[in-house]
């Protein structure tokens, strides 16, 4: 993998020049935390590098909450998204499998993917509920993104990952091969440090495969216990980087509005005949875990949970899936 280097001041200048041809989104801290903002000449210096994790999942750039999918107007300007944590990059895998499925390609999704350059950012720290490494995901991107950006003091280092990333970086003439071994060693040190942090914070958490087995085997009582605080608001699915269920709504002129939906909402699986296997709240609650850790892993190559922990942060009922899985682990060991 090739590394390129540029002075931070020069990088900011280069980014500013790109604004004339691209819409650039980047992770910027505000008083409430980190999130994607539209980059302007005025906030380029506020971009945060190497910090986990923006409040908004990456999927919203490709799957809007609501869109008219029959109007045919979806050509957009070329986009750059900068500062994506690797968990969100990995979350795009399953969305690609679903929406770029060769039998039924979603053309709006495809156009957005084709017109977007993904620049990941290594995580040099972890947030409270981060647990990517428990599911075999690294806190830095080596595949999936086009490039990864890292800031070490006054240097910006770019890890070139895809041909699209290579082509893009060739436009930035000020980039030079990163020959300084010390900087690369320093990056590796940061990687090891954050991996150690993640591992120590999540040592009680089962891995992905074990989680699937525990979820499959869990009896009704634990689902009733944890779902007793659930209000079916769907915050967990909305904030999840891999949940992408939707509803098609009809509008006059045979137009279709595609709107995000959630298996946590009552009636999600109800049929015309009245059958509804997710009628009970505890069944809907359990369904989400079975879907993520058991069913989708049998159907798709990509993961349906990246360990970002956003569902824990977003839950109105303060339900922690990690507490649930830890409890299931303890119960299985008794």
């Amino acid at each position, binding site marked *: 993998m090739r590394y390129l280097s540029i002075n931070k001041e020069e990088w900011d200048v280069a980014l500013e020049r790109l604004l004339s041809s691209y819409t650039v989104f980047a992770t910027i801290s505000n008083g409430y935390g980190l999130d994607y903002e539209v980059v302007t000449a005025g906030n380029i210096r506020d971009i945060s590098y190497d910090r986990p994790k923006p409040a908004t999942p990456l999927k919203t750039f490709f799957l809007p909450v609501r869109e008219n*999918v*029959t109007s045919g107007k979806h050509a957009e300007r070329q986009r750059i998204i900068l500062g994506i944590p690797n968990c969100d990059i990995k979350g795009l895998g399953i969305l690609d499998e679903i929406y770029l499925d060769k039998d*039924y390609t979603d053309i709006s999704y495809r156009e957005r993917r084709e017109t977007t350059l993904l620049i990941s950012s290594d995580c040099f720290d972890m947030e409270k509920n981060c647990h990517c490494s428990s599911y075999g995901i690294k806190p830095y991107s080596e595949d999936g993104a086009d490039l990864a950006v890292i800031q070490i003091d006054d240097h910006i280092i770019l890890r070139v990952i895809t041909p699209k990333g290579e082509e893009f970086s060739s436009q930035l003439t000020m980039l030079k091969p990163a020959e300084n071994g010390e900087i690369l060693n320093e990056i590796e040190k940061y990687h090891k440090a954050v991996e150690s942090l993640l591992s120590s914070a999540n040592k009680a958490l089962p891995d992905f495969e074990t989680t699937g087995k525990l979820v499959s085997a869990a009896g009704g009582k634990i689902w009733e216990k944890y779902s007793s605080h659930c209000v079916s608001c769907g915050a967990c699915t909305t904030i999840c980087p891999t949940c992408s269920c939707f509803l098609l709504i009809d509008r006059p002129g045979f137009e*279709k509005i595609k709107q995000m939906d959630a298996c946590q909402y009552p009636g999600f699986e109800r049929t*015309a005949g009245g059958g509804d296997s997710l009628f009970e709240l505890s069944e809907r609650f359990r369904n989400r875990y079975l879907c993520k850790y058991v069913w989708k892993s049998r159907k798709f190559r990509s993961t349906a949970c990246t360990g970002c922990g956003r569902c824990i942060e977003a839950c109105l009922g303060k339900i922690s899936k990690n507490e649930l899985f830890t409890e299931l682990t303890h119960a299985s060991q008794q």
Partner: protein
Amino acid sequence: MQVNNNIYAPLKARLTEVIEESPLIKTLVLIPEEKFSFNTGQFIELSVDGIGEAPFTPSSSPLVSDRLEVTIMKTGYVTGYMHELKPGAIMGIRGPYGRGYPVESFYGKEVLILGGGCGLAPIRSLLYALENISDKLERVVLCYGSKTPSDCIYKPLFTRLNNTPKFEAHRTVDKADEEWGGNVGVVTTLLEKVKINLRKSLAVVCGPPVMMKFGTLKLVEMGYPDDLIYLSMEKNMSCGLGKCGHCMMGKFFVCKDGPVFTYNEIKDQPDIWN
């Protein structure tokens, strides 16, 4: 079929005839604006402009591509609007979707079809397909149950089948009226009255979930192998494209991986009868 390469855009179809099958069931006869082919057992998403769409398996012959019949029971909001439509109305069709009946694998076999209620609609389409290949089949036996004699749709179909070589059709009702002289009881009671050569037979089950469940369990008890029982599953197939998630049944999207499955494929999945 995809309109303008857009998977969500429906093809327009003109409603030319409305056939009243029973107080709650109507058949809509549609002429699509372009030829529309499907395999028997596949389904379509049929829409009322600006109101909504719902999944239906066509009840007409898969050999006809310029005319489509869809038999619809009035059960809710969208089907309520469909029942109000008059000839001349323009509807939308998306599809055909999913995996239908693998009729080529029926060659040389006896086909036992167990149907209930509105499940006769897709079965009628299957029967048209089987009539077309009857020279390659050993025998086709239809066992059909409805709640009452008046709830039975396509009544002339039974007479026609019983006059067709290699075909036979049997009826039962849950509750008889004064004129009914036939069998009374759930559809599985008919199985005791038909002769079946198990070594050469396969079964197709289509109907309400409770009938599918007990029908399948009875067939298993009779000795039908799990991989020779074909089930047409009913779930909330909303997009038809294996994307929206509403019809997930364990690891399967019923809309794309089904709706026709063998019992062997789905018996370990959760909530298959709900």
